[in-house]
Each structure stands twice: as C-alpha cells, then as structure tokens.
C-alpha cells in the first residue's frame, strides 16, 4: 500500500506542529479569523486536527456529507476558500513538505470546494 503523506512526514509528531501553526495563522488572519470567534478552544483544535490529519491521509476521514453539514451554518465565500488554501500551502511549505505533496493536499481540498462555498449569484 502506498505510504500516506501522514506517515511520510512523521505522523502525529509533525501533524501536531502543522496544526498549531495553522491554528495560529487562521486566528490571526483578518479574513478567516472571524469564523472561529465563537468556537471554543477544544472545538477549534478538534477541527484543525481532524482537518489536517484527513488531508494528509491519516486517521479521521470524513464523508462529504459530514463536511457539508459541519459548515452549513457558515457563509464561506470563494475568497475565504482561496485564502485558506493559501494558508495551508504556506504552512505546509514552512514544514518542508514537497511541492508535489502540497499540490496533492491542496488538490484534495479544492475538490471539496463546492461543499463549503456558497455559490455566488453573480460573478
């Protein structure tokens, strides 16, 4: 079986650092931070851990239904989604993840865009 990115980059030990870094940047980000205003700490960490882990093929994989449901109360616009992709790319690059692997992770993320982003009425 092909090794997952989760295993390739050191499992939980690395993913935990990626999670905390992403968490810091998300909260500090002017566009994305507000989404986490009313979420408590364990909620955010839980979200981030599962998020990064599943993006890298580690434990915790979510069905698309689950993802759609968990975000249905949020108004996520295309630029929010793009910004998150940028942040994920930045953080992974900071952790020396190969560009091709970053592309794979961000690609997996992009594939789920329709589940999260409100379809704009006008362009």
């Amino acid at each position, binding site marked *: 079986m092909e090794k997952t990115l989760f295993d390739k980059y050191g499992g*939980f030990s690395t993913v*935990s650092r990626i*999670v*905390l870094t992403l*968490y810091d940047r998300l*909260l*500090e980000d002017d566009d994305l*931070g*507000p989404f*986490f*205003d009313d979420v*408590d*700490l*364990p909620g*955010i*960490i*839980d979200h*981030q*851990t*599962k998020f990064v*882990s599943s993006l890298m093929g580690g*434990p*915790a994989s979510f069905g698309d239904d689950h993802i759609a449901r968990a975000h249905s109360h949020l108004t996520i616009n295309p630029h929010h989604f793009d910004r998150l992709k940028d942040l994920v790319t930045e953080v992974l690059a900071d952790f020396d993840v190969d560009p091709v692997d970053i592309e794979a992770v961000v690609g997996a993320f992009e594939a789920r865009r329709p589940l999260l982003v409100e379809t704009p009425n006008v362009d």
Partner: protein
Amino acid sequence: MSIEAINEQLLRAIGVGVALIDLQTLEVRFRNDTFDGWFASDGPPGTLPDLFPDLELETLRADLAQDKTFNAELSFKLRRRTMTVAMEFNRAVDAGENIAVLVCQNITRIKELESMIDAYSMMVERNTHEIKREKEQVERLLLNMMPRAAYEEYKTFGVVSPRLFDPVSVLAIDFIGFDDVLSKHDPGVIVSELNDIYSGFDRIGAQFSCQRIRTNGDSYLAVSGVPDPNQDHANAVAQSAIRFLRFLERRNASHPIRWVARIGVASGSVLGSVVGSQNYIYDVFGETVSGALRHRGAAGDMSIVTDAAFASLVQNGFEATAREDGLFGLIERTEQAGTG
C-alpha cells in the same frame, strides 16, 4: 541606573505576568508588561475583583494568611485566541505591608496540546475500533472457509501446508432432482433455501464434531476427524447423516419445496490443504472423498449408502444392510419400527 530600577526593568520584560496586590484593599499596585498585555487596561491598575471577578477571594485570603500558596487557572479570550494562564499567589515575606505577589504563567500551548491529544486519541480509538471490527469480520469469513487450526497456521506462516488426516470419515450429501427444482423456482428462493438447509446441516454437524468442508451448488461435503482427530469419526458422520435426513423430512413437511436428498459416507484418510494462491479454499482430497461421492451416487431417495469398511465401524445404534452391488444401506437401528 539603580539596582531597584534594573530589577523593575527585568520584571517588566520577562514573559511571565507579574503583579503585586495589596491584600488589604485588593488593589493592584504593580503590573509588568506581560501582565498588562493579557489583562490590559489603559487606566489605573484596578483591583483584583475588577480584573478577575471569578476568583475565590475568601479562599485566597485564608490561604495567604496561613502563608500558603494560592493557585488558580484562568481562561479568557485575547483577540480570538482562548488563553489559559496558571496563577500563583504568594504573600511577600518582606516588609510590614500585607502584599501578595501574583505570578501568571501562560499555559495556553499546553492546553492546546492537551485538546489536540484528546481529539487525536478519540480519532485513533475510533479507527482502532473499526479496524478491530473489520479484522473480526475477515476472521469470521476465513473461519468459514477453513478450519481454525488451518487459519491459525495461515495467520502465522502465510501458508497452510498439506496435512494427512487419518482416520477420518467423510459425508457427502446432495439433492435428487436439483436441476428440476432450479428450473421451477426463482434463483433467489433457491439460494435462500440452501442457505437455510446448509445452516441446519452445519448446526447438526457441530453437535457431532462433523465439520462442513465445502459446498458446491447442491453438493455438501462434511468431515469428522479434520483437523482435530476424532476416534468416533464414523459414528459422528453416521449420526449426522441420519439427522440431516430427519431435519429435511421435518422441514419438507412445512415448506413448499420438498428436498429429496441422498447421502454417501466413507472412512479412511484425507489430505487437507488450502488450495489456490488468490482464492483460498480449504479442501480435502483422497480416495475417501471419492468413495463418499461414489456412494452418494448409488444412494436412493432419502437414504444413506456406504461400504463394508465404514459399516463395520458403526455397529452400535445403526443397521447396515448389504445391497446387491456390494455396498450397504445405513439406517438408525431405533428407527426400524418407527416412521422415520
């Protein structure tokens, strides 16, 4: 710069929040920069209850009066971040004044890591649970395909080496007019019927240490003495055979499809092994198996046929009647006068 000034400068610069509290008035006399950064207010230093309304002041006072340390933990939002600090109050030993030193350690990262470990452990536990369940399902499936001993061998070594089992007895049963039944009924019905019947055979076999080896369409083959030796293999097979027929008779009385079976039994040795490298099937081979199949072919409706060798092994409780072709019909002795 005086020593006091240097001390104060240092106190202001460190990454630990420090404040001095007047225990009489609960006023904050001094706050360093880190403390201010967390509990910032541009105004006057304020009082302890203003800053921390949830603090248990009575306990704090009582503890400090006895020169004990008072500890508390506080969570608050700093911008969006949930911060957690560990507070430690100590009474200043010096001076005639009633002053407490409050030291605040930032334990936010520890709390975040704790939360993450919790989240991760739950994920891992759930995954482990799922893997365990899947493993059990696979194990159950494999145990349906091979005896436990063969499965254990396969699990440990990745292969199952052929093994000779001697002596054993083999039972072969099939249904007369199966093609006819097939053509008259929906395949789904047939499958469901066979499933029910074979499950019944399995249950009966289990009572007599007689294990199903394989089924192929309407052909059901069971063995006693594989993989665990069974001294009483012939009786086990004969008992099972009698009860298979009885089970079918009872079942036929209350079901629309009437199944007419025939059974061949034989004893001797068999070679047991897993065959195939992609599709693992545990099977038994040898003259004994062929013998049982041949005898089955010679059996009439709802009857059991065997040879002299097997017949000689099952004298108690059974009656073997010699046939013209040299084979023997086998019935249960107590059934002679009964209705069967």
